[in-house]
Every structure is written in C-alpha cells, then in structure tokens.
C-alpha cells in the first residue's frame, strides 16, 4: 500500500544508510516547537516524519510497535514539559505508561537506543533541532532495524 518513491530499496545495499525516524508529538508543545524551528528557518536532518496527536497521553504503546513494523529505525515521543501539559496531567500519564512500556520493549528485543522520549516546549525550537539531529545520528550509527519489518510482510501475506 505504501510502496512509493524508492521505498523498496534496501537501505544498506545503497551504501549510505539513512534511518527513518517516526516522531509522535503533542499538538500544543512539541508540534508548536517544531513549527517554530521552521519559522526560524533552522535546519535539521530530514529523516523524521511527524504524527501529531492532541497529547502524549493519547499515545498507545502499540503506535510505537506499529512504527517499527512499518520500517522505522527509530521512534521519538515528545510532549509538553512536566507541569506544562495543556491537559493538566496528560503527559504524566504518558510518562508513567512509558516507564512500564520501556521494560516491555527491552523484553521484546528492541534496542532502547532506538526509542527516545523527550520534552520540547513550544519555545524550544533549538532543543527540537538538536534532538532530531541527535536521534538521527544515534540511530544511524546503530544501522537499520530489520527485525520487525519481516513481521509485517508475513502478516500481510
């Protein structure tokens, strides 16, 4: 369904691996922070694709697994700083869930260096830029994440 524009090319074979990063961000803080990076004409690595949600509290751990299944080499979750949540406590729920989820991910064999959790406020464009660059470079160093991709294809077949 999503076979477009060099998508099926095996990244390693091309020699210069460019990781794909999926970012789940909240609408109020991090999305606005990323917008600010744009309006300030900052530059960062192009590997990230953002999915906007109202709040990090909306993030279902399955989203992250699905992202890996669909070819993400790294996943980033970012929302408002603790205490600044637009919905008062949504990000606390996200954080609590995250702590439990992390050990499950480790159990599932996912290298925790592929998963990042951060707080980026609407004014922290620089932090957003640094974060994307850092995550991209780290995941790049780890190489492609292939284990879950097979899972998806067999499932589709």
């Amino acid at each position, binding site marked *: 369904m999503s076979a477009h524009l060099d998508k099926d090319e095996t990244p390693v074979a091309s020699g210069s691996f460019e990781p794909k990063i999926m970012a789940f961000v909240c609408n109020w803080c991090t999305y606005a922070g990323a917008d600010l990076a744009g309006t300030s004409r900052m530059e960062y690595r192009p590997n990230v694709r953002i999915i906007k949600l109202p709040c990090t509290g909306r993030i279902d751990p399955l989203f992250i697994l699905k992202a890996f299944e669909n070819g993400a080499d790294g996943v980033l979750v970012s929302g408002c700083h603790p205490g600044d949540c637009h919905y008062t406590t*949504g990000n606390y729920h996200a954080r609590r869930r995250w702590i439990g989820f992390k050990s499950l991910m480790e159990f599932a064999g996912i290298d925790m260096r592929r998963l990042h959790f951060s707080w980026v406020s609407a004014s922290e464009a620089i932090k957003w830029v640094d974060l994307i660059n850092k995550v991209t470079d780290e995941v790049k160093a780890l190489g492609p994440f292939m284990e879950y991709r097979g899972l998806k294809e067999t499932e589709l077949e």
Partner: protein
Amino acid sequence: MPRIGVFVCQCGNNIAATVDTKKVAEEMAKIPGVVYTCDYKFMCSSPGQETLKQAIKENNLDGIIVSACSPHMHEKTFRKASEAAGLNPYQCEITNIREQCSWVHHDKTKATGTVKSVDLTRMTIQRLKKNQPLKKIKIPVKKKALVIGGGIAGIQAALDIAEGGREVILVEKEPSIGGNMARLSETFPTMDCSQCILTPKMVEAELNENITLYTYSEVEKVDGYIGNFTVTVRRKSKYVDEERCTGCGECMEKCPFKVESAFELGLSKRKVIYTPFPQAVPNIPVIDAPNCPKIQKDKCGACAIVCGPKCIDFKMEDRLETVEVGAIVVATGYQLMPNERFGEYGYGRIKDVISGLQFERLASSSGPTGGEIRRPSDGKVPESVVFIQCVGSRDEKKGVSYCSKICCMYTAKHTKLYSHKVHGGQSYVFYMDIRSGGKRYEEFVRGAIEHDGAMYLRGRVSRVYEKNGKIIVQGADTLSGSQVEIEADMVVLATAIVSREGADGLAQRLGIGYDKHRFYNEYHPKLKPVETVTAGIYLAGSCMGPMDIPDSVAQGSAAASKVLALFSADEMAREPITALVNKVTCNACWDCLTACPYTAIEREAIKDRKGNIVRWVARVNDGVCQGCGVCVAACRSKSIDLKGYTDEQVFAAINAF
C-alpha cells in the same frame, strides 16, 4: 472508493524553493482513491480557496488534503472553505510541508524536500481515508450563575454579572456577606475605611434584583457541566423567618446569653441570637443553636417573646435546595494559619500577643474598643507595639514556604494607624524583606517609616515571653548584627494566609484542581488566570493564593466577564474532538475514569426493559471532555476512541510511513 483531492501549495517560493510541488502532486495522483491533484502558488489566497471550492464541487470530492503550512496557521481557513463547498469540514486535513519540510531542509536540488513532502502527504491521505464526518457540539447554556463566597471578590463578581443582565445566586457560609474585608479597619495604600467602601457594595448586592443572597448556606453537591450545572445548597437553619423578619434587633437586645464573637476573633462577646456585625447584610439575626438554651434544653425563649412579627421558630431545620446554573464562580477566600503553632511567640498564652486581623478589629471604629488601640488583657493603651512579620510565611519547617504577599503592606498600615491613634507610642517592625510591589505601595511603606516613625528592624524574632507585666521580645537586627530585646506592651503577629478549612473538599465536589497548600489552581497561571480546568467554573480572589483587595476585585470582575461571555449565546459550540465509548465492549474497569483530568467520564447504567441495572459502562460527557485522549490509551479493552484522532486514523498514517 473515496474521492480525494490533493492541493499542494507553493507558498510563493517558501515551499517551492526546496520542494518540487508539481512532482508531489503527480506522485499523489498515483495513490488509489486520489481523483484530483494540483499545485498552486498561494492556496490560502482568495483565488486559491476558490480553486479548492470549485474542485470539490466539480469532482464531487469527499475528502481533501491541503499540503501547505502548519495546521496551526490555516487549518481553520481551509476547513471553512470546505464547508462552504458542501464538504464536512473534518474531511479536510492539512499536511505541513512548510514548517516541517521546506523551511527546515535547505536542499536547493529539491530532492530532500520532495521526498519528505511526498511521505508526509501520503500519510495524511491514508489517515483521511479513515476520517468520519464530525459535527460541532452544541451545548445549551442556562444563563444563571452561582457565586460561592460573599467576600469582596464574590460580591464584585455577582454585581458585575447582575449588571450584565444575568441572574446570580450568591452563596455565603456566614450569616452576612462581607467576608474578611468586613473585619478590616482601613485599607492600604489609600487608607479608606474598609466598611465605608464595602458596605455600599453589600447593600447593592442585596438590592440588585438579579442577585439572590443565600447566606448561612453551603454548597453540598455539584453535578453537570458547563452551561448545565445542578448544585445542591444546604441552607442552614437560621431559626428566624427571613421573609418576615424586619431586622429591628429587639431579639438580640433581650437575649440574656453571651458567647465569644467569632467575627471579633474572640476580642468581644456577642449574643446567642446575633448578626455578626451591625452593618450585616442581610440584617437578619440567626440563632447560634449549640449555645442556645431554648434549643438545647427548652429553657428561655426570650427572643421569641419579644419578637413583634413572630418570626422566630425554634423547630426550624436545614433545607436542601437545588439550583440550576450555567456557570460557577468560586470565591471562598482565605483564613489565617493558627498562631498556636508557634509556641515561641506565646499566642494564646500571653493575652496581648494578637494576630494582625485582631489588630484590625482593635483599630476599627466599629470594633470592640470603638477604634481605640487598647490591649486585650487590661484595656491599657500600649506605649510600644512590636509587629512581627512572616509568622509562618516563608517558613518551610513549621509554616508554609510561600510569601503571604499582603502582610508587608498591612503591617505598614498598622504602624500608621497606631501612630495616628496613639500619640507618643512607638511601633517596631521585625521584617525579613519588604515586599511592596504595587501602585503607590513602596511610597506607603516609606511613609510609615519616614513620617509615622515606625522603627523597622531587619531580622526575625526568636522568642516572646512575659516578664513583670511586660512582653519581652527577643529578636535580632541583622543590619547592625546585634541581638535586640524590646519591652513591649503588645505584640502583633502577621500570620501566614492559608486556604480555607475544607477548601479541598469543595474542590473535589466541584472537580477543580488545587495545590499542596489547598489553593485552587487556575487553568493557566498567565493566560487563563480565572479559569479552571473544569469548563464553566471560574475563580476569583484569595482562594487561589494570598491576594489583596485590588487584585481580588479585579479577579471578581474578570471571572464575571468570562461568565457573561459564556452567557452571550444560547448555545455554546465546541470542537467535536471528544472521546467516545463503545458500550458493547466496555467492561467498566474505570481506568478511564481515574485517568481523565476533567472528570468527563461518568458511570452509566445499562438497564433491561424492566428497569433493572444489567451492567455498568463508561460514558463521556461531551460538555466536559477536552479531547486529550488520555482515556483512550488507558483503556485496556480498547473501548474508547477519540474522534478526530481514532486508532484507525493513526494506524493508517503509521502504515503509510
């Protein structure tokens, strides 16, 4: 098969410089379900919007994507245009290829930008395929407000709402409105007499036909949501028929029993049938039941005998009254921290160690001494008075960590009042810092020092004790680096301001947040200072934290303006991004209920035809839900979804990654 249109915006050169918009449009045309694509210089311009509307109509589109700037910028614009073309506005989605792509990836070959724009747009298309048409939520609004607390903040809020032409119920716990301000003598920095400026407002509140006073009453239960609250108020028995009482005062005159006056903070006594103070509004006495021999032991009854209109009823009972209102203003005010906690200052043991509020009563012309400063122990005029600031404030060990904000000012005022009333008397003030930020505040404090001769000592007092009829104050003056001992006739403690006893209980009934000091939380400390997280409930005054009169009044007016704005339309429209429960699969574990920051989740009983409850499920109250989606992720049985951000929509976007 859906019929989707994709409009790629060049944004002049803003997008086109690094993204090949034509290529993006071409690539999108290949996706099944996409029946129309184009790229255009300025989609948000009038001709751009016309193009969009025309394309929707001509191609019979059932969903559109605009790949342009951030949705925070123009989502509303394009949704409105879609609606004008007959499309459900929630079938219009924005892909952000400017802030997230062209502006942050400066590759002039356009390769990077084009690939990313294609990816992002593709993800949005797949998401759009799962969209459902949504309708704005309309909520009817009852145009009547409830104000809890009849202090100056509550009175102001009630008056402003009433003057805006809306009905208000003002609930006050005590027999009279007026709050703590009614206790004050003069007010800083202008030295107006507090009663002189407050009493007219109290009377105005009583006479305004839009305001109904519920004095001696408390809020017991709050149900419902913005525009539609049902509030149960306990109207405590006054034992006096309010309708018939003329306020002649004969009963109070004849009552033979006296107890300590709470209003006068123990400085004088009042009758058992009483009004808290002479200017009380309403001017209707109440019987203090626990102390009344007639009610307790069926002895006396003098008041009933002398009452002309025969309005005393010893058998009267509390009534519960239910009122329906559209908005609530909470203005429950503050109280002082119990001074007994600071044993070193001798409060409660040494009679002439008093609180700042007690000093207000001594200085007030309607107070127990008629405005003469006399010490409680023997009525002597004190020749030297020591004022101790920060008693409990800024004291994280035995008191509270915060600054009580108003004490610097009222202590300066006290020294002024004292010097005006007692010639030759000397006041001493122990302070840590003087916080006099406010219009004409600093000048006021300097005036106390320079014109009225208050001796300010920078330091704290360690101990206060009695010796030979004098009060010995043992302190330090850190500026000279010495210990200081003062023989005083009276000591006044500027005690910390704390939240009202029971503030937490009321907050729980209202479903609003409070901090660890039980002060109520505003929605946003800067931008939404009088709102709470519960829509339709507003705050005013020192129930939020220590506040002086000007601030409390400003907040009362601010809360009132919020209420009036809410009441300006018959219905309130809200974004339809709310959660929805699948009643078939919900197994009533209530994880959603505990997770929800807004108490938007309710328990709903599923009944059979005979009306027996078969089982329980969760239900989302659209009037309260803010659409954060925390409940969705918390639900283990996957029985809740968030409209506009459904699992299906999100997964579709991920799958298109």
